């Protein structure tokens, strides 16, 4: 387990849990939850600086980008133009190339617009970005994304922020089997056991935001996810027993008194 790393493009991280930094009560709680989660990578959004309040604290005052990898995300972008603009600005800000692409298609279910997503991935790859891509759980579209150069495939478990857990294990398993780059579940996880299931299926990692931030005790939930992801990974590596449809007793029949 000590040599078990998550490798995305040319980066190598220890924790298979990536956490979002949105929806928390304040930046202090965000920082505490990130710490408790043990995550090496966090997603961040790109937004306008508040120019009317010069003293407003900034995320980077609470989470050190030198210690935790910031993964700029295009959450809230509904077309390729907005997503590309956001990530080009993010690159200028941080100087890094690893980004998360999310092009949404519908305001109610926040499903990704896969046509715009594939188009944007192609452009970003051409510009030298390493793109982790939020996508539907369709194996054909996942393959298409890999073909155009995605650095990680990030299928949804369920709609963003829904907390419904993995809705289509069969599709997620198919995607895992066919994909050579990391497969990371993004969106829809509700509780720690959902993350364990994802890892047991063979996912390379999970990305969690709402399930931690919206918990009654976010910091405790962050800890729980840390353990759940580790546990699921170990379980996957250990290889589960075969399912049987009849009982098989655990104690030997020989020597029964």
């Amino acid at each position, binding site marked *: 387990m000590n040599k078990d790393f998550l490798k995305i493009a040319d980066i190598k991280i220890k924790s298979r849990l990536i956490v979002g930094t949105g929806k928390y009560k304040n930046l202090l709680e965000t920082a505490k939850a990130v710490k408790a989660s043990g995550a090496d990578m966090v997603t*961040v*959004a*790109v*937004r306008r*600086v508040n120019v009317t309040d010069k003293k407003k604290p900034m*995320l980077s005052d609470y989470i050190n980008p030198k210690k935790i990898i910031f993964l700029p995300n295009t959450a809230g972008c509904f077309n390729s133009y907005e997503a590309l603009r956001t990530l080009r600005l*993010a690159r*200028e*800000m*941080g100087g890094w190339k690893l980004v998360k692409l999310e092009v949404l298609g519908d305001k109610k279910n926040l499903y990704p617009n896969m046509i715009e997503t594939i188009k944007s991935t192609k452009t970003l790859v051409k510009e030298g970005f390493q793109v982790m891509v939020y996508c539907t759980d369709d194996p054909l579209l996942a393959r298409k994304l890999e073909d155009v150069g995605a650095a990680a495939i990030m299928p949804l478990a369920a709609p963003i922020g829904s907390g419904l857990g993995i809705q289509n294990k069969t599709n997620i398993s198919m995607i895992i089997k066919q994909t050579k780059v990391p497969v990371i579940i993004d969106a829809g996880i509700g509780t720690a056991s959902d993350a364990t299931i994802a890892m047991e299926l063979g996912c390379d990692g999970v990305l969690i935001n709402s399930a931690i931030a919206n918990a009654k005790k976010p910091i405790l939930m962050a800890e729980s996810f840390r353990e759940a992801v580790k546990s699921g990974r170990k379980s996957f590596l250990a290889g589960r027993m075969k399912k049987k449809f009849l009982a098989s007793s655990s104690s030997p029949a020989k020597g029964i008194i």
Partner: protein
Amino acid sequence: MAKIQLNGKKITVKSSISLFELLLKYKLSNKRVAIEHNGKIIPKTKYKTKLVKNNDKIEIVHFIGGG
């Protein structure tokens, strides 16, 4: 004086100040930000030489919490 639009707000600044001076004005010179000047992303190395003109549209962005 130059009238510009900064992050969607109309403001007035001294004519021909540089982007770097604009960042200083908002205490952002040592912060992790990126600047878009009339729709074009400006590399950090040009902040001191790029000057702000009347009617310019400037966006200064940073990282915030997000999923």
